C-alpha cells in the first residue's frame, strides 16, 4: 500500500530517481550508484507486483543504472594526458539536474496567478451575440485546422485516409507556388520551372506538381518547334478568377 500511494505521484523515472536521492539525502553530484540502483529496482518490482502499468521508460532507466554500476566497478584508467576518464554518472547527473530545473519551474508556475483559478476576465457578450462560438481567423491555430480535418475524415474508411496521406503536402505546395508564379509571369519555360528548386527532393516535387497540373489541364505545356524550349502557361480557357479574390 505504501508503494502505491507514492508511485502515483511520480511523473516518470527521473522523478522517481530524484525522490530516492532526496529521501536518502544524497549529494546529486556524487550518487552512490549501487544503493540507488538497488532501491530503484525494488520500486519497479513493487510496481510490477501491484500490476501497475509500467511505462517502458522506467525499465530503460533501470538498464542505464545497471550499466553505470558495472562501469563504476571497472578500474579507473588514466588517459594519456593524465586526465581522469569521464565519470560514468556524468550524463545521468546532467539529465537529473535538467529535469529538476524544469520540475521546479513547473512548481514555480503553479504558484503564479492563474486565469480561471485566481482571476477571471469577462467575455464580450455585447450586442453581437451572433458571433458566439466563432473565433477570429487570426487567433485560430494550425492545430484547430488539423482537428477540423480529422473530424471530417473520422467517418471515412481507411482506404480514403490512405489516399489522403499520399496526397503529399509538398506537391500541393509546389502546385500553389507554381500557379502563383505562372499568373505573374504568364509563361515560363520548363527549365525555368524545374530550375527553381534548390534541392533534389524539391525537383521531384516540382515535376510531380507539374504533371498533376497538366493532367488536370490547369496548365498547358507547348513547344513552337522541335528542340525549342518547352513553355508552360496557365491553360487559356481557364477563367482564372483569382484576381477578384486577391
Amino acid at each position, binding site marked *: 500500500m505504501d508503494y502505491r500511494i507514492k508511485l502515483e505521484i511520480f511523473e516518470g523515472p527521473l522523478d522517481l530517481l530524484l525522490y530516492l536521492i532526496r529521501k536518502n539525502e544524497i549529494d546529486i553530484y556524487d550518487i552512490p550508484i549501487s544503493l540507488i540502483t538497488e532501491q530503484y529496482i525494488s520500486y519497479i518490482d513493487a510496481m510490477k507486483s501491484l500490476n501497475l*502499468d509500467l*511505462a517502458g521508460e522506467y525499465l530503460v532507466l533501470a538498464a542505464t543504472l545497471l550499466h553505470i554500476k558495472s562501469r563504476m566497478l571497472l578500474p579507473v584508467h588514466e588517459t594519456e594526458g593524465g586526465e581522469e576518464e569521464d565519470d560514468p554518472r556524468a550524463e545521468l547527473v546532467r539529465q537529473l539536474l535538467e529535469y529538476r530545473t524544469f520540475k521546479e519551474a513547473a512548481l514555480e508556475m503553479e504558484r503564479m496567478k492563474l486565469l480561471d483559478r485566481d482571476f*477571471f476576465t*469577462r*467575455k464580450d*457578450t*455585447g450586442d*453581437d451575440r451572433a*458571433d458566439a*462560438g*466563432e*473565433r*477570429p*481567423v*487570426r*487567433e*485560430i*491555430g*494550425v*492545430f*484547430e*485546422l*488539423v*482537428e*477540423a*480535418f*480529422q*473530424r*471530417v*475524415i473520422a*467517418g*471515412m474508411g481507411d482506404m480514403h*485516409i490512405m489516399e*489522403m*496521406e499520399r*496526397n503529399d*503536402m*509538398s506537391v*500541393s*505546395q509546389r*502546385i*500553389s*507556388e507554381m*500557379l*502563383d508564379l505562372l499568373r505573374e509571369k504568364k509563361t515560363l519555360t520548363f527549365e525555368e520551372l524545374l530550375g527553381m528548386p534548390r534541392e533534389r527532393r524539391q525537383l521531384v516535387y516540382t515535376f510531380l506538381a507539374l504533371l498533376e*497540373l497538366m493532367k*488536370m*489541364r*490547369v*496548365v498547358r505545356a507547348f513547344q513552337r518547334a522541335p528542340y525549342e524550349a518547352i513553355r508552360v502557361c*496557365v*491553360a487559356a*480557357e*481557364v*477563367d*482564372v*478568377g*483569382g484576381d477578384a*479574390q*486577391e
Partner: protein
Amino acid sequence: MKDLKIIIESLVYISETPLSVNKLKELLVDVPEKDIREALAGLADEYARRDGGIFLAEVAGGYQFRTAELSAPWILKLRGGKPATLSQAAMETLAVVAYRQPVLKLDIEQVRGVDVSATLRGLLEKNLVRIVGRKDVPGKPILYGTTKKFLEAFNLRDLSELPTLREIKELEEAESLE
C-alpha cells in the same frame, strides 16, 4: 465589510447577464439582503461620481456594467473591425481545401457529406480560399486552393508547415496510455 463590496463588484463584472440581488443572496449565503443592496448602491454611486468609461447600471432586474455613452462610436469601430470569424463548417471545409488542394467542390462535398456552396463562398469572400483553375473534364469544374492570406492567418510560412495527419495521430495514440 469592505470585502463584500469587492466580491460583489467582481461578480457583477464577470456575470454574463445582469446580476440580480436574489442571485447574489444565493451566492453569499449568510449576507443580509440589506448589506448586498447597500454595497450595490455604493458601487453604482461611486462609478457615477467618478464619471469614467464604465458605469454600474441597474437593468432588467439586476446590475450590470455599462460603457459610457460617449464611447459608443469607438466601441462600434472596435467590434466592426473584428477579424473575420469562421464557423465549424467553414473550418472543416477550409481544412479539406488546405490538405487536398487543388480540389473540386464535388470532392469537398464527398468528404464532408454536405453541400458546401455557402461555406465555400464565405471562404472565397474572406480570401482564405481561391479559384486556382478548372479541371479539364466535361463541365470544366472549378478547382479550389488556399491563398497567401490563409498562410498569414494561420501563421504558416508555406503549406509544408501544415502538420501531417500522421504527426497528429502520434500525439493521439499515446493518450490511451496515460
